[in-house]
């Protein structure tokens, strides 16, 4: 397997996330499946403490975030060597409800190769170690959302 030829895309961007463009970049002639996760701004939250969101304002420690996204991609390749292409993109700035904010896509030859798990691992890991934060602005004011994961040495 020529792993070195497998495309890996990772970036923090202020631009719209272009799914078709990213998918084309991680599709090889040997690719037959892609698992894609994308998250968007939720305007109305009913789970937990119900509330409404006007917009989210994202910021990032960009050079570290991109290095940690590459680390997430490396971890995916170590756990699922069958994965062909990987795209990890986080959009930052002021983002309104229904707008996609993050995208993780993994491609493989077939769907029953663990490619779904690989994409899920990617988003879970991004939310643990990639330095990005969001401030939630709603009718009742604004509040930074804080995660709860404390990285361990070596992460």
């Amino acid at each position, binding site marked *: 397997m020529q792993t070195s030829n497998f495309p890996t895309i990772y970036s923090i961007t202020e631009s719209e996330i272009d799914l078709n463009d990213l998918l084309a970049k991680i599709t090889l002639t040997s690719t037959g499946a892609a698992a894609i996760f994308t998250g968007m701004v939720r305007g109305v939250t009913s789970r937990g403490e119900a509330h409404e969101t006007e917009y989210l304002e994202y910021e990032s420690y960009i050079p570290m975030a991109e290095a940690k996204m590459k680390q997430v991609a490396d971890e995916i390749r170590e756990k699922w060597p069958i994965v062909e292409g990987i795209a990890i993109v986080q959009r930052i700035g002021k983002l309104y409800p229904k707008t996609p904010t993050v995208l993780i896509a993994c491609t493989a030859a077939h769907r029953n190769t663990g490619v779904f798990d690989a994409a899920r691992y990617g988003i879970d890991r991004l939310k643990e170690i990639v330095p*990005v934060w969001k401030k939630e602005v709603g009718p009742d004011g604004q509040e930074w959302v804080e995660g709860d994961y404390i990285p361990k040495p070596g992460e």
Partner: protein
Amino acid sequence: MNHIKLLFFATIRDRAGTKSMEMDIPADMTILQLKEKLGIDHPNLKESMKSVLVTINREYAFDEAVVPSNAEIALFPPVSGG
């Protein structure tokens, strides 16, 4: 003395009132001692220093680590991307 650059993000930046600052610290200062110093120099940050995440040159760092010269140190709350 070691010269270092500090970067603040999210809640920590709001409380510090600035995105970054530069400072000189003793050559053997640890992350724990740096957090204590910041809490004393900037009382607004004192409470945040208990749960803050710290990086040295873009890698997560922990209390016992010694801060190297010319380090880029970042302080921020647990991440909330996605």
